[in-house]
């Protein structure tokens, strides 16, 4: 098993938005999906997932409905709002710019710094 990474500050929201963008999903599934997709590299602290969901809902980026799961249990399903979609695109773009810049810096050869 590879060592797990802590999430950089502020990225949890972005990840949640991205997962929810794929279709209505409940909290437990979000946690599962994040771990699976990141091949268990990203460890979502489950305790901070729910406050984040509530915060996003409160800001109007997410909306929620109570629906039945395939096992017939009632669960709270989150989906993306229009505002949430716009936010996702904005944050994803800025994330990409940032990572590109960071990797460019990291690729500098030691001697070339001066």
């Amino acid at each position: 098993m590879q060592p797990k990474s802590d999430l950089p500050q502020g990225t949890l929201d972005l990840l949640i938005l991205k997962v929810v963008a794929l279709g209505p999903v409940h909290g437990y599934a979000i946690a599962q999906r994040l771990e699976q997709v990141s091949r268990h590299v990203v460890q979502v602290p489950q305790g901070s997932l729910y406050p984040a969901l509530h915060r996003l809902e409160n800001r109007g980026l997410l909306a929620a409905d109570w629906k039945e799961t395939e096992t017939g249990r009632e669960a709270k399903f989150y989906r993306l709002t229009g505002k949430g979609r716009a936010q996702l695109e904005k944050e994803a773009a800025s994330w990409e710019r940032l990572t590109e810049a960071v990797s460019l810096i990291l690729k500098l050869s030691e001697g070339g710094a001066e």
Partner: protein
Amino acid sequence: MNWWQRLVGRKTMEEQLDKEVRFHLEQCAEELMARGVAPEEARRRARLALGGPEKVKEECRDARGTRWLEDFWQDFRYALRTLRRKPGFTLVAMLTLALGVGASTVMFTVVNGVLLRPLPYPQPGRLVAVHGHTSTWNTKAFGEQNLAYPDFLDCQRESHSLVLAGSLFDGGTVSGSGDPEYVDLQEISSNLFSVLGVNVRQGRAFLPEEDHIGAAPVMILGYSFWQRHFAGRPEALGASVTFNGKLYTVVGIAPPGFRMRDSEPDVMTPLGQDSAKFLQSRGPHPIGAVARLRQGATLAEAQAELQLIGRHLAEQYKDTNADRSFVAQQLRPHVGDIGSTLWLLLGAVGLVLLIACANVASLLLARALSRERELAMRVALGASRGRLVRQCLTESGVLALSGGAVGVGIAALGCQPFIALWPGNLPRVEEIQFDWRVLLFALAVALLSGFLFGLAPALRAPARELEQVLRGGGRSVAGGSRRLHSSFVISELALAVVLLVSAGMLGHTLLRLSSLDPGINVRNVLVSRMALSPSTLANTDRIRAAWQDVLERARRVPGVQAVATVDTFPMREGFNEVGYWPTADVPEENKRPNALATSVSPEYLEVMGIPLRRGRFFTDQDRIGSEVVVVIDEVLAQQAFGGQDPIGKQLWMPDMGYGPFVVVGVVGHVRHWGLAGDDQAQVRAQFYYPFAQLPDKYLKRWSELMSIAVRTEVAPLSEVESLRRELRGAAGDQVLYGVHTMEQLADDSLALQRFLLMLFSIFAGLALLLACIGIYGVLAYLTGQRVPEIGIRIALGASPSGVMWMVLRQSLGMILVGVAIGAAAAFAAGRILQRLVQGMQPAELLSFAEMVPVLVLAALFASLLPARRASRVNPVIALRQD
């Protein structure tokens, strides 16, 4: 979801949150079980992975961002529960506050209506008043100067920034069917209604072509007059009304409540139709002018423009307009000098409110102390300091708002009775009503007082060492709290002293004023304005005979002892000031001393019972053609002639238009300005001159404002009907109006002082009561806290009287400090009263000497009960307690 839904749907949200977290845990556990983990272990691991369901939930609640609101809601319900648990405390605190808030709201409602509400016209900020101005004019004594009609017309024509409208106040007799009635007339320019932005209720306003001499006589009726004479029937439009013997066609009816200079005109006619001579000259200045700023114009532009017009007129008409300019000012409601009285009362009521606040604060503080353990427990369980302060303030806020709501109720009920009690006419009384400002005021006052009295308990709540409190069981009293308590009591007492001493000073003033000699014998004297028949007034030759006839007819009425005509009588609005000089080299106008001039018929002295000091009063031989004479009062005799005998001396009075006058008698001084006002009046000297010697050219004007004074053998008011019948004249259109007795007038001249005394006594009584309740409550609480200590003292041999004295000494200390501070403040309050109330004497020691003991005794009495209770403490029980 908005915040309101959140608040209301709190319960649903809690349930959903719980369900969501539970779903997560179960899902997680099931998955683990599917992988073969034992159920018990699976649930444990699921909980571990989540990190404690309650903690997650708490963080979710925080994430909602409406946490403060939910806390507030919780505090609010908690406050309600706590207050309900102690109904006695809640009731006393609420009533105290309700009284304070209610009384201040009543006062503010009046202040708001009379002083603060804008004029009831559209865009009142664009309305201005236009006045004349000369450097020698004394605005303070005479008010703003009006305009000469030709000057007004010039301003109206030449101003580009203002639309001017003018009015002239007059009166006259409406006759025809029924009793003749003397009514108030406003002659107005045709655009007055449009300038003010008022629509006539029915019919139309005057047309510009009706605003000229010779146009068809038309009239607009005041709403009340229309109700009175036409019972509100629409047929009044087009009907004719006989006014001053001339037929007018009614073309419009003014809306209800339409007022000019705070009185509703009965009838209105076009100003331009008046052909009176004084309207054609630039000498007299009778026209009141209002104007509306034109679109885009500013007041400063209008000012500059009027100044320019004034300068042109001054060059053109040197003898009348030299040095005369015109000024525009924001149009303000006409309320006279009522403002100072109103603010004074609002201030006094504010003191009562402060006392109420101090009272509730000390009650709350006492309760906060007994709840110390509860608060300490909350801190121990993790409540932050800010959270506790918020909880305490919520509690006092709830108390304040509920008290305030009751207070608004009291104010709503009390406002009308209060206005009814007001002596004389309260200006703009129709504007006094509950509007948003009043409600805002009440809300602000309630919240502010809630904050004031809630702050002290709130701030000290978590300040103590937790452990000590939790262990100590609130047995010891910290010095800090005792000081805080004492400061509440001291401020209450000080405020009460201010109100008590003020009431005392007013009482003394009133006593002194009512014992003053008015200078006349007010018993059995009737005074009334009298309008001659309009046809007589139109013919100067008949006026003298007509007045003679009035006097003779009145004398024939049974029960009448003596009767006289008089132009201005004492203690009533209306006076003539005339400059005089005892030698022929009379100085210029504003350098001459002034005296009050009164034209009378010979029996006036007998009617009024004024004492004759020297010489003689007038006789029927003083008539036109004989030597012109005056009778002066003692004040004028002293001022004009010093110690010399004035009889036979002469007085030069250019304003009278004839003379010089020979002094033939000296009479006693009459308090013309009322019992209260006369001593401070600027002009006190008086003289009388015979109406019979008035030159013909003045006869008409004087007769229009004439009164008769009658001395009766029976109750004066019972003579009114017979006099009215006897004096109706041949055509039945002579009217008595504005009937008073001198006794009433003398009494009314002290009405304001009496009213203030009554209110201040009520306030002072309230203050005393509240302060006593306050001192009782605080002492009872403080001694209650000291029971164990007192128990020890008694066990060690202290006598009951010693213990009692100990408690009393503590209260006496507070009382003395309170009285000392209060006395200093009362001294300052006395100076304010002296400035604002006529006839007020400077703060006398007597008022202090009377009122302070009252307070000290009452306060000591209030402390007696707790002191006695302390002296009866049973040491065995006290020491075993807790």
